[in-house]
C-alpha cells in the first residue's frame, strides 16, 4: 500500500470519523451507539493516522499525554457520579437539566451523558495508548 495514499486517506478520514464518533456518543442514550463505540472509532482513526505518519506524530496530534488523558477520562466519569452527591442525591444519580436550544427545542442534558463522555475519552485514550506503545516498541 502506498503510504501517500494512506496519509491522504488518514488526513481526510480523521475529522470525519471524529465527528461521526461524537454523533454516536450523543445519540447513544436513545439508539445503539454510546461512548464506548464512539471512543473506539476515534481511536481507530488516530491509529490509521499513526500508520501513515508514525506513532510519534499521532501522539503529537493528541496534544496531551495519553496517560494523563486516561486519568482525565476516568475522572470525568467519576465526576459525573459525584455531581449527584453534591446535589444531595446518591452517588451516580442522574441529574437532568433542560434548556432551550435555538432551532432544536428543549434539550435535556444529564450527568449520564457526562458519564458517557468520560467513557468516550477513556476508551479513546486507552486504545491509542496501548496500540501506540506497542507500535513504538519495535
Amino acid at each position, binding site marked *: 500500500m502506498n503510504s501517500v495514499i494512506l496519509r491522504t486517506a488518514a488526513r481526510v478520514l480523521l475529522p470525519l470519523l471524529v465527528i461521526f464518533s461524537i454523533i454516536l456518543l450523543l445519540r447513544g442514550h436513545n439508539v445503539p451507539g454510546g461512548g464506548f463505540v464512539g471512543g473506539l472509532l476515534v481511536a481507530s482513526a488516530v491509529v490509521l493516522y499513526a500508520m501513515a505518519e508514525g506513532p510519534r506524530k499521532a501522539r503529537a496530534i493528541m496534544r496531551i*499525554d495519553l*496517560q*494523563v488523558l*486516561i*486519568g*482525565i477520562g*476516568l*475522572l470525568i466519569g*467519576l465526576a459525573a457520579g*459525584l455531581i*449527584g*452527591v453534591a446535589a444531595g*442525591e*446518591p*452517588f*451516580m*444519580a*442522574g441529574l437532568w437539566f433542560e434548556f432551550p436550544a435555538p432551532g432544536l427545542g428543549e434539550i435535556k442534558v444529564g450527568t449520564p451523558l457526562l458519564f458517557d463522555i468520560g467513557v468516550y475519552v477513556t476508551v479513546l485514550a486507552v486504545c491509542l495508548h496501548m496500540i501506540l506503545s506497542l507500535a513504538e516498541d519495535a
Partner: protein
Amino acid sequence: MDLLVASPILLHLTAGLLCVVAWKSVPAQRVISIVAALLGPLVAGLLLVTVHNSGPQTAALAGWPAPYGIVLVGDAVSVIMVALVAVVGLAVVVYAMGALDKPRERAGYHPLIHLLLTAVNGAFLSGDVFNMYVWFEVMLLASFVLITLGGTRGQLEGAIKYVTLNLLSSVLFLSAIGLLYGIVGTLNLADIAVKLPLVDAPGLKAVIAMLFLVAFGIKAALFPFFFWLPASYHTPPPAIIAVFAGVLTKVGIYSILRVFTLCFPQQLAEFADVFVWIAGFTMVVGVLGAAAQFEMRRILAFHSVSQVGYMFMGIAIAGVCLAQLAIDPAGDEQTGVLRQAAVVAVAGTMIFMLHHGVVKMNLFFISGIVMKLRGTAELKHLGDLYRTHPMLSLLFMVTAMSLAGIPVLSGFWAKLVLVRAGLDAGAWWLVGAALFVGSLTLFSMVKIWAEAFWKTTPADADKALAAHDESQGGPVPGVEPRAGQGANLTLMTIPAAALTVLAVAMGVGIAPIYRAAERAGEAVMNPDQYIEAVLDAEYLERLDEHRAALGLPPRRGGATVVAEADPTPSPEDPS
C-alpha cells in the same frame, strides 16, 4: 448515609485517578497517596461505628432501588474487611515510600495500589453479584500490573501463571453469573437469596454453587486451585506483594462466605464434607509446601495457602453445622450448640482474615527489610541478624510467633476460635489437621529465625551470592540491590513496627475484635437481617406470599432455609 458506604471505594478511586493524572510527578502522587491512605482508616472507622450502632447500611447507587440498581451494603461482615483494607493500605503506602525503587514508583505504583484498594473495597461492599465481578476484574488487572511492575524474568514467569489461572476463574465466575441470571432473573445478592429457593432445579443450583466455589477458590488459592500463588507471590518486591498477601486472597474467602451463606446455604450444608476436605487439604498442602522452601518469601507465600485453608475452615465448619441442623432440625439443645458453633466458626474466619492480613503483610515487610540489608532472602546466605539487628529480630519474632498462633498474639485467638468451633461441631479430623498444621507453621517460622537470625552468616555467602548473580547474567530475579540502595530503612521499619504492635494489641485486646467478628458470624448465619436491609418490606412481602403459595416454609429464621421442602415450579412472576 449513602455516601458513607460508598466512600471507601470513592476515596481510593479518586486518589488513584488523581495519581494517574499526576503521572509525571512522583512527589504529587506521594502526597495524594498518603493523604488517601490516612483518610482510609478514618472512613472505615466511621463506617464500622455506624454499622455497629445502627445495623447494616446500604447505598442504592444512582438512586435505583434494589434489586434493580446496584446496591452497596456495609454489614457487620463487610465493614470488618473494609477496616482491614484501610490498615493494609496505610501501612503499605508508608512502607513503599521507603522501600520501593524509583523506577517502579514512577511506573504507576501509587495509582495502581489505590485502584487495587478501590476494587477490593468494591468487592467487599457490593451487594450485586455482577458488580462484584466487575470489581474482581479491576482488582485482578491492577494486581497483574503490579505483579509485573519492573518486568524481571521471575516476575513475568510468575505473572503468566497468576494471570492465566485467575482469568480462568473470571470466566467461570462470569458463566456462573449468567447461568444464575438465567434461573432467577436477578443479580442482587439478597434478591437471589430470596428467589433461589423458589426455583426447583436442585442439580442446576448445586452446579452453579460449585462453579462459584471454583471461581472464588482460585482467587482464594484453595486446594487444588492454588498453584498460581506460590509461583508468583515471591517474585515482585515486598512493597507490592505485601498488599496482595494482606487482602487479595481474602476477597476470595469473603466471596465464598458471602455467596454461600446468603444465596447457597442449602448447598453449603449439602456439600459440607467437600468443604471440609478442601479446607484440610489446603492447610496441609500449603504448610508442607512451605516446609520444603528455603527462601523467606517463598516460605511466606506457601504459608498463605495454608492459612487460606484456616480461613476456609471456618466456612466449612459452619457448613457442617448447617448440615447437621438440616438432618435434625428439631429444637433440642444440640441445635443451639450447633447454631452457636456455626456463628463462632464464621467469627473465627473473620478473625483469621484480620490477623492474617496484618501479620502476613508484616512478614513480607520484614523480608523486604532483610533483603535491603543483605541483598537476598535466601536462608542459606543469611545469618547473624539476631546479633546485628536486635530491633528487626524482635519485630520478626513477635510477628512470626503470631503467625504460628503463639499466645497471646493475634494468631492464637484466630486459631483458638476455629478450634473451639470445630470441636463444638464435632469436626475432629479437621481440628486435628489444623493443630498439626499449626505446629508445622511454627516449624517454618523457627526455621527462618534459626537460619536468618541465629546462625552465623556463612563465610562464602557474599561470594556465593555474587557467583549466583553472575551465572544468571545479572541480578537474580527477586534479589534486590544490595545494602539499602536507595531505600529508606526508617520508613520501612515504621509500618513494620506499627503492625507488630497491632498484632500484639489485637491479641491482648481481643475482646472487642471478637465481638465484632461474632456479630459478623451472626449476620452471616441469619441472612434475613441482610436481606431486609437491602430489599424493601413491601417487595419482600410479595415474595413471601409467593413462597407460601409454593408451600415452602417461611423465610424467617436464618439457617432454617436449609431445611427446605420440595418446591413445585410455578410460571408466575413473583414481582
